[in-house]
């Protein structure tokens, strides 16, 4: 039973935290409706509107004068493709490391995880060489193509996902698989028909996590993509809404707000399954 005192404590803890954590978004929302004059008036109360605010012109600027929607679309495409590649590479590897290999499987799992620690600050230079000399693509390999990101991002999503899924597969009772094998199913068949379906929560975890890593990238997208119609949201917004020493603050805020809210809704919706996935994976 939960006492009302415990409930009150919960509110007292969650209320302030929710306020602080969400405040920047509230502030972005506010800012995104302001006119120039209103924004740059220090005497004006920032929590109220004036000088022609509120206005929707920052939003119409974003949608009509920039390729914002294309950037959002590109981010989604890259995210989905990277997630797919990550799954194709990480799921079998994780399963094999967890089940088919002995002690060295564990060590190798840790080894794979360690590659996740390499800071991307300078890696983008050698990688730039790799993508520009990629045998397919345009005049400079995959440079300025979304596919460059699709190729490179798994380099940090695969290590993480493999390690996570490894833990997850270990939690699946061996008996389940053995029973299937006794019935004459091959190893692969067992894998597809027994193991994967039970692992769905773990896979979901990997999907959400990989996607959020993709959205957060900055350096790679900055270095690899310059054509406006191939930019992802982080770099597109960044490179085109800051012009010289002028920041288009209101549009920048609108551009941040717009994708965050649906993503947060989506994450929140899947949170319970995500939790189930992580519980299975991370520490068993």
């Amino acid at each position: 039973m939960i006492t009302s005192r415990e409930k009150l404590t919960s509110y007292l803890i969650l209320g302030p935290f929710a306020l602080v954590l969400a405040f920047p978004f509230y502030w972005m929302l506010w800012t995104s409706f302001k006119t120039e004059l209103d924004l740059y008036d220090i005497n004006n109360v920032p929590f109220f509107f004036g000088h022609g605010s509120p206005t929707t012109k920052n939003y119409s600027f974003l949608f009509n004068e920039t390729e914002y929607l294309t950037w959002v679309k590109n981010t989604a495409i890259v995210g989905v493709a990277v997630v797919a590649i990550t799954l194709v590479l990480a799921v079998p590897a994780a399963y094999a490391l967890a089940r088919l290999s002995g002690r060295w499987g564990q060590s190798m799992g840790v080894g794979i995880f360690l590659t996740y620690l390499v800071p991307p600050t300078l890696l983008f230079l050698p990688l730039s060489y790799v993508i520009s000399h990629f045998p397919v693509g345009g005049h400079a390999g995959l440079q300025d193509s979304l596919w460059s990101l699709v190729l490179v991002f798994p380099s940090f999503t695969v290590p993480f996902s493999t390690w996570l899924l490894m833990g997850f597969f270990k939690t699946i009772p061996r008996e389940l698989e053995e029973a299937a094998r006794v019935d004459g199913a091959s190893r692969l068949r067992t894998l597809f028909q027994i193991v994967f379906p039970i692992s769905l929560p773990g896979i979901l975890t990997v999907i959400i996590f990989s996607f959020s890593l993709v959205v957060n990238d900055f350096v790679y997208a900055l270095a690899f993509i310059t054509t406006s119609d191939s930019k992802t949201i982080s770099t597109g917004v960044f490179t085109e809404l800051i012009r010289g020493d002028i920041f288009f603050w209101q549009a920048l805020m609108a551009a941040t707000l717009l994708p965050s809210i649906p993503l947060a809704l989506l994450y929140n919706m899947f949170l319970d399954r995500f939790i189930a996935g992580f519980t299975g994976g991370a520490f068993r």
Partner: protein
Amino acid sequence: MATVAASGRTRRRRRNLLESRRFLATALIAPAVLFILVLVGGPLLLAMYLSLTDAVGGTLGGEWVGFDNFLNAWRDPNFRRALRNTLLFTIVSQAIVLLCAGLIAHALTRPIRGKWLLRFLIILPWAAPVPLSTIGWLWIYDSLFSVVNWVAKQLHLVDQFNPPQWLGDPTLALGAVISVHAWRIIPFAVVIFLAGLASIPSEVEDAAKVDGAVGLKKFWYVTLPLQLPIATVALLFGIVFTATDMTVVYILTQGGPFNSTQMLTSWAFFTGIRGGSLGEGAAVSLYLLPLLVVVAVLMLRFARKVEVT
């Protein structure tokens, strides 16, 4: 894997092969390992090589200079400050994250009204792309239009003309960077903690109740120990996210004021990429790796050990 469903005469033989543990394991692991070797291993080796040369401005090679770059970097006070900051940012922000996320997750396990909304608000920072949300913070901490300062000024807490400069005073700026890191990682840690709490079997809860353990006592003796392994995981990721990130510092302060908030990653960028001393930049960024590897291995070991006991 798609080729698995191969048919024809070779099928039997293949099938036997696929039943071989060793072969199957190799076949399943190889693609991932190869991919990582090519895209992380190769470039990493190249970066190591560059750090031992006097490579400049985007030329992937140069004359061999041994450990000169590492020594040069070490002698530079800005480098040492960047090293210290990397540790400071990571440790302090993660301490905050653990504390806050622990509290939030605990409070979120109770069935309360409006939980969905609260959870949504708490998750928001995680959903926002980091480069963009950092721009949001840049505006919040702006030198002239900071909303924080506006409120503080209205309450007469600060000087009207010369309010605190969140990004202009070394101490405050360190705090600002830490706050953004903590802010963006708390939701992630909350989620992991929730997973940890969900995994505590209900029998344990019941037993604790019978023994009369409630409130803090229960937290300290029952929940916390059971949470340790998952806390380790959350911490490990938090550390990696903070220590290897360059975006926050790069956007928020550019390492300023007077290079007092540089991290190794950003300092490597400014010397190696912007300044053109590629070899030295590579050396700066490599200082971090051994440290992280040791921390990660220790923490992974610890997580496993705690599980066993």
